[in-house]
């Protein structure tokens, strides 16, 4: 095994989930957790980093409860967190359609969808809370889609057999986030939440083994300050931007999580990344990000490539018998609707064989000609008009006349900081919510479930579990002069001084782009032992070069976007290596992680439950990461091999 890259450590002792029947565990946990007297809450200070669904909902709710909350985000307004971009919808086991949905079914689907690499207790709690989320959001005035009778509309999403997805046109994340944002602003006005926009957390402060604060940089003035509290919550989102090109916003980063990791927090399952099959392909070197086209397009579009390699005729001139509808061919039962990971990999396979279309041969056709013929242009326009317009704005091609080109792109990261059932990391006082933690999706996330998890964590789970920790507070006062605080601050100062003083000649972006290419090539849709080893070597080399040659202009005492990026890319370089190591050690294929060595005869992913039914929680070590395994047990859903033939 690859022990030249990492060491084995002790197994994770306890994830703290209560025992007993699964549907009573959350109830039990809430009852056994200690409470904080309302009068004492005012004396307790909680830092929440992040204002996405997970952060804003937590900060608002903690403020309502009466804690003193300090909330941070790097954007100019808390409303711009990346959650705003989610399109499709949010799941909830309301069974409003009477189509057989239930908490148990949502639980079951999510565990199975995660390819049996998530915790049953967590997922069940998520399914239970899902219904409360919808109630909460409706009360806040979130304008969900409704039917003529005035009740909420639902749709089925991501291949689910029941209609449990609530949505607000194609902008569900935006509307949910605005609900949380408004709740948060209400607390700001009430004086319970101190909100700091354009502030970036650059270091975690640990005093006597407990998380007690953060070091932040004011992105406008460059002022570095140390913020102290009784507990710290990270809700800092996902790290898909390690691939440079992804569907994530430009600012998404791993810095908060990575700094905590370097201070001792475990990073779990970093290699689990979700690649979304329907994104607009890259058009050139200048490309800065990739745009997701809703998954719903696959309901009516047919995916194909020319049979003849390098065929550059206009798609309309390619006759039927010279087209390869490869999804329909390989997966006759599910056809164009196979799950995300399968559709993505299949596209890569045909492009690697040279059948790809568009610039660089990195694209496949998503063709609506048949749908237009069958339903009429009007109907297609009504269903997908806005998506078609967006496609045309970006590519300049008219999808009514010429099939869309699509290609897979990195979309979501299932890995993240390790947390127990209480959403506490292994550092006491450090809690992690939303995409930043690893908790509920296992090796693969189902559509419309990230929004659910972010809000579940922020509105309902964390405010209930954090009180058990805070019941011991307020903790002994620390101030700016404490040696741990001074040391953390110095680390930040030194790093900034290094970047600004480095006499380099290469831009930060050029390193980021190169890292992205390595990650995509070797730690993307398909991973091999050989490729990953190569990638680790390349990343180490790149990191070396980064510190020698990176060039950052300007000074600290100003808005300096290059300096911001430099810090983020430095952390991505370290994360990228850990992702490859994690991918290398997991020699099975599961969910978003496909190891070419572990496949069935017909090329499908092969899980290895004997060896790998565990969470890989990595501890930072100066001489390489240390692996702690948390065994996964399945009492309620028996692991089976997925099949979509």
């Amino acid at each position: 095994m690859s022990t030249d890259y990492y060491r084995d450590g002790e197994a994770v002792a306890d994830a703290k989930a209560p025992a007993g029947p699964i549907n009573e565990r959350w109830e039990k946990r809430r009852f056994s957790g200690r409470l904080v007297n309302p009068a004492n809450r005012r004396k307790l200070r909680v830092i929440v980093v992040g204002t996405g669904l997970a952060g804003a909902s937590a900060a608002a709710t903690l403020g309502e409860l009466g804690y003193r909350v300090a909330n941070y985000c790097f954007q100019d307004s808390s409303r711009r967190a990346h959650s705003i971009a989610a399109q499709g919808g949010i799941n909830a086991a309301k069974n409003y359609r009477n189509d057989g949905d239930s908490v148990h079914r949502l639980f079951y689907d999510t565990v199975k969808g995660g390819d049996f690499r998530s915790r049953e207790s967590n997922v069940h709690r998520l399914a239970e809370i899902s219904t409360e989320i919808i109630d909460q959001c409706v009360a806040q005035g979130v304008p969900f889609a409704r039917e003529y009778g005035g009740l909420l509309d639902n749709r089925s999403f991501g291949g689910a057999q029941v209609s449990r997805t609530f949505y607000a046109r194609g902008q569900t994340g935006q509307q949910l986030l605005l609900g949380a944002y408004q709740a948060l602003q209400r607390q700001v006005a009430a004086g319970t939440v101190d909100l700091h926009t354009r502030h970036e957390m650059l270091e975690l402060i640990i005093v006597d083994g407990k998380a007690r604060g953060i070091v932040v940089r004011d992105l406008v003035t460059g002022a570095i300050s140390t913020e102290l509290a009784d507990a710290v919550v990270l809700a800092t989102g996902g790290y898909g931007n390690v691939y440079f090109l992804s569907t994530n916003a430009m600012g998404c980063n791993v810095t908060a999580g990575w700094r905590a990791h370097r201070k001792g927090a475990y990073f779990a399952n970093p290699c689990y990344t979700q690649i979304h099959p329907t994104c607009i392909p890259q058009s050139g070197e200048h490309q800065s990000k990739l745009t997701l086209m809703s998954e719903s397009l696959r309901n009516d579009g047919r995916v194909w490539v020319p049979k003849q390699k390098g065929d550059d005729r206009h798609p309309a001139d390619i006759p039927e018998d010279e087209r390869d509808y490869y999804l329909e061919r390989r997966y006759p039962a599910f056809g164009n609707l196979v799950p995300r990971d399968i559709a993505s990999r299949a596209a890569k396979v045909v492009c690697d064989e040279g059948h790809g279309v568009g610039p660089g041969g990195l694209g496949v056709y998503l063709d609506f000609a048949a749908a237009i013929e069958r339903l009429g242009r009007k109907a297609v326009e009504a269903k997908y008009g806005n998506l078609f317009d967006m496609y045309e704005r970006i590519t300049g091609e008219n999808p009514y006349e010429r099939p869309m080109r699509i290609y897979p792109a990195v979309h979501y990261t299932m890995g993240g900081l390790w947390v127990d059932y209480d959403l506490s990391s292994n550092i006491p006082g450090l809690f992690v919510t939303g995409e930043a933690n690893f908790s509920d999706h296992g090796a693969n996330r189902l559509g419309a479930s990230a929004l659910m998890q972010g809000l579940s964590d922020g509105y309902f789970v964390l405010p209930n579990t954090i009180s058990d920790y805070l019941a011991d507070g307020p903790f002994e006062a620390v101030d700016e002069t404490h040696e741990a605080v001074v040391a953390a601050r110095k680390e930040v100062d030194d790093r900034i001084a290094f970047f600004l003083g480095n006499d380099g000649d290469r831009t930060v972006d050029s390193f980021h782009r190169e890292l992205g290419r390595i990650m995509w090539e070797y730690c993307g849709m398909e991973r091999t032992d050989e490729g990953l080893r190569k990638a680790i070597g390349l990343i180490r080399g790149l990191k070396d070069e980064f510190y020698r040659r990176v060039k950052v202009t300007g000074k600290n005492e100003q808005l300096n976007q290059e300096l911001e990026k430099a810090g983020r890319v430095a952390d991505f370089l370290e994360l990228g290596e850990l992702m490859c190591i994690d991918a290398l050690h997991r020699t099975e294929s599961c969910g978003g992680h496909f190891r070419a060595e572990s496949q069935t005869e017909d090329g499908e992913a092969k899980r290895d439950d004997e060896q790998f039914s565990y969470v890989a929680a990595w501890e930072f070590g100066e001489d390489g990461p240390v692996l702690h395994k948390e065994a996964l047990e399945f009492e309620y859903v028996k692991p089976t091999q997925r099949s979509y033939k």
Partner: protein
Amino acid sequence: MKLSLRIWRQSDAQAQGKMVSYEIDEVSEDASFLEMLDVLNERLISEGEDPVAFDHDCREGICGACSLVIDGQPHGPQAATTTCQLHMRKFKDGDSIDIEPWRAGAFPVIKDLVVDRSAFDRIIQAGGYISAPTGTAPDAHAVPIPKQDADAAFSAAACIGCGACVAACPNGSGMLFMGAKVTHLGLMPQGQPERHTRVLGMVAAHDEAGFGGCTNTGECAAACPKEIGLDVIGKLNRDFRKAAIRAA
């Protein structure tokens, strides 16, 4: 293609800014406007110059961060399109393009093309919400809402808080932004109890923040990337009149 750019450069809030000219070559038609600026910035950095600062994040037209006035038009020449979704094929080889920040007293420039839009957050703090503390909600189906109302509320709620309306308004008024929120919440039954205090509070915060008064010129709606219409301003006015009379 080849372009001549004139870009507003201002090193910080206090500094005196000016338009600076740059030539840029080999711009791809397929690049977005911001990607074109990325290319320029890479060049500036390698020449040891300070790159042009601008706000952006999602680059998908939804976060509301991007904010450039291109040739005198907030978000540029293409209707219903944010700057980040504007692509270079909308321009011609040899074009010269002026790029300026949002101009408004309530949105002071921080650096180059970056402005401070926190005044919008303060307007929301003054009432742009429904008070529904976590855990107090009835079942989502307890109150049906007519589909037309829900759809209209959604259309108003689609505002991304970009501030283009203010940048376009000859009076520097934030009425369209404020009207969008008042309309969204005012169309929902949940929003009724606070309807009057909301509009009074938000208008007071708006005036306090230094936005101008609306004289209905309608430039805001023409610039809005989310096609929020002037009817939200009408609705705001109506609610404001009722609330002011009730409060008097």
